[in-house]
C-alpha cells in the first residue's frame, strides 16, 4: 500500500502567509476541489470544534470519498491565545479541555489531532526544563483522554524560529517517547527539518516508529521547487521503509489556491508516489 496524499485546507479567510493551500468558505467547498483533483484526504484547521457538526462533516467527507489526515489545532493559539504552556493555569486547563473536544471531533472523522503552535512558546526567563515540565503535564492530560477514546494525538517538530526546545526530530521524538504511548505520535515537516536536522534521511529514519503524518513544504513555505531541499531523498527513505500513512502539502496558496493545490498533488505523485 502506498502513501496517502492530503492537502492542508481552511474554511475561512486567513493571510496568504499561512501555509494552507486549499481555501474555501466551507470544508465542503475544499473537499469538492480536493476530491476532483484526486487527493486521498484533506487536513482541517479547526479553531473551535463546537462550531462544527462532526457527523455532518463525516458524511460530507464520505460523499467525496476523502479521509481526514488530521484536525489541526493551531488557530486557537493564533486567534485566542490558548497555549499548553500558558503561565496562567486556567488558560492551560482551557487549552487541554479544547483539545479533548478536538479529539472527539477527530474520533468521529476516524482521524487524529495535530498539535503544533498550540503547544506554546517559552516565557521570558523560563528554562528549557521548566518549559518541558509544564508541557509534559498538559500533554499527559490530553493523552489520557486520547487513550481513553482511542484517538491519536500527533505532535509536530517546530523549528527555532517558530518554536522552542522541541525543534529537531531527535528532541521531539525523545520527548514523545517518554510517555510510552502508541496514541502519541509524530508529524515530520520538511520546512522545519531544513533548519533543524542536518541529516534529513537519518532524521526521518529516527522518526519512523511514530511517524503518521509528513508535511511537504519548501523553504519560505512554498511548493517544492527542487532547488532548496532534497525531497527525492526524503521520499526514498519513506518508500524504503514502506511508509503508508499521510503525506500532506503544506504551502502558501501561490500563485492561486487552486493552482497550488493542483501542482502540490502533481509533485506528490511524481516524487512520493
Amino acid at each position, binding site marked *: 500500500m502506498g502513501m496517502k496524499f492530503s492537502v492542508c485546507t481552511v474554511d475561512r479567510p486567513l493571510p496568504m502567509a499561512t501555509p494552507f493551500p486549499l481555501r474555501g468558505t466551507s470544508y465542503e467547498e475544499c473537499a469538492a476541489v480536493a476530491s476532483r483533483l484526486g487527493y486521498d484526504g484533506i487536513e482541517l484547521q479547526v479553531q473551535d470544534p463546537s462550531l462544527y457538526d462532526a457527523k455532518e462533516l463525516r458524511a460530507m467527507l464520505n460523499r467525496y470519498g476523502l479521509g481526514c489526515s488530521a484536525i489541526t489545532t493551531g488557530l486557537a493559539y493564533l486567534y485566542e491565545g490558548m497555549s499548553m504552556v500558558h503561565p496562567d493555569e486556567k488558560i492551560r486547563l482551557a487549552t487541554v479541555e479544547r483539545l479533548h473536544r478536538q479529539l472527539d471531533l477527530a474520533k468521529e472523522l476516524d482521524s487524529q489531532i495535530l498539535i503544533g503552535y498550540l503547544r506554546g512558546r517559552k516565557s521570558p526567563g523560563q528554562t528549557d526544563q521548566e518549559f518541558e515540565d509544564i508541557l509534559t503535564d498538559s500533554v499527559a492530560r490530553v493523552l489520557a483522554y486520547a487513550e481513553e477514546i*482511542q484517538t491519536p494525538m500527533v505532535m509536530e517538530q517546530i523549528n527555532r524560529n517558530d518554536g522552542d526546545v522541541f525543534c529537531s526530530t531527535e528532541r521531539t521524538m525523545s520527548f514523545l*517517547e517518554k510517555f*510510552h504511548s502508541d496514541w502519541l505520535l509524530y508529524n515530520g515537516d520538511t520546512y522545519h527539518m531544513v533548519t533543524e536536522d542536518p541529516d534529513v534521511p537519518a532524521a526521518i529514519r529516527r522518526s519512523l516508529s*511514530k511517524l*503518521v503524518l509528513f508535511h511537504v513544504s519548501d523553504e519560505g513555505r512554498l511548493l517544492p521547487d527542487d532547488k532548496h531541499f532534497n525531497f527525492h531523498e526524503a521520499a526514498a527513505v519513506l518508500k524504503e521503509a514502506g511508509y503508508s500513512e499521510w503525506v500532506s502539502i503544506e504551502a502558501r496558496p501561490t500563485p492561486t489556491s487552486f493552482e497550488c493545490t493542483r501542482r502540490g498533488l502533481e509533485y506528490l505523485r511524481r516524487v512520493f508516489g
Partner: protein
Amino acid sequence: MIEKLSFGEPFLETHYLENENAFTIPGCCLLMNLDTEKSVLAENEFSVPPLSAAKLCDAQIDVPGKALLVFGSDTVDLNDLLTLDCLRSAWKSNWELTHLDKHRGVPYYKSPRVTVGGVTMNFCLVADPDCPSGIHREHGKPVKELHMQVVGEGAVDLLRSEHPSTVFASLPLSAGTVHIPEWNAEGIYPWHRYRSVTRSIFLGIEI
C-alpha cells in the same frame, strides 16, 4: 566460537556459543540450548537437551551445537518503575514496529532482532501482568517458535480456536525455562499465545 551479541544491551548481556568446549561461565546466567539435535553438557554431569534451558552458575560447559547465554536477568527488577521506563524507551512497542491497529496500546515492547547460526531472536518486555498476546497459529513464514522466560513469570496457552475461552493447555514459564515445542511432525501449531503472569521479559526464538 563465542560471539557477544548486543541485542539485549544495556539490560541483558548475551553470548552466542557454537562448537565450544570447556567454557567456564563467569557467574550465573540462563543457558538456552538452540540446537535441535545436540545436548549441552554441564560439568560433565548434567545434560541440557536440545531446545531446553537451564540456569547455570560458574559451570564448565561443552556446547557441541549452538547455545545462547543470557547474563543479568537477576538484576532486572520490573517492579522498579525507572527500570520499566528505561526498557520501554529503548525497545519499541508492537505498534511502533508494525503500525497495525490491532497492536495499538498493547504493552509488548521488543528489543532489536538478531539472527545468528540460523536462529532469530529478540527480547520482549510485557509491561503489564496478566496480558496475553494475540492468538495465532501462523508465523508468516515456516519457523519453529519458542519462548524462554528471562524475567518474571509467564505461560504459553494452547487453544482450540481463536477465541480466548478455548484454552485447553497452559505451559507455565519461570525465569530460565522454555516450553516444550508446540509444533507437530508436519510443523503445524495449535492456536496459541504468550501470556504474562507478572510483568515479564521473554526471549522469542525462531528456528
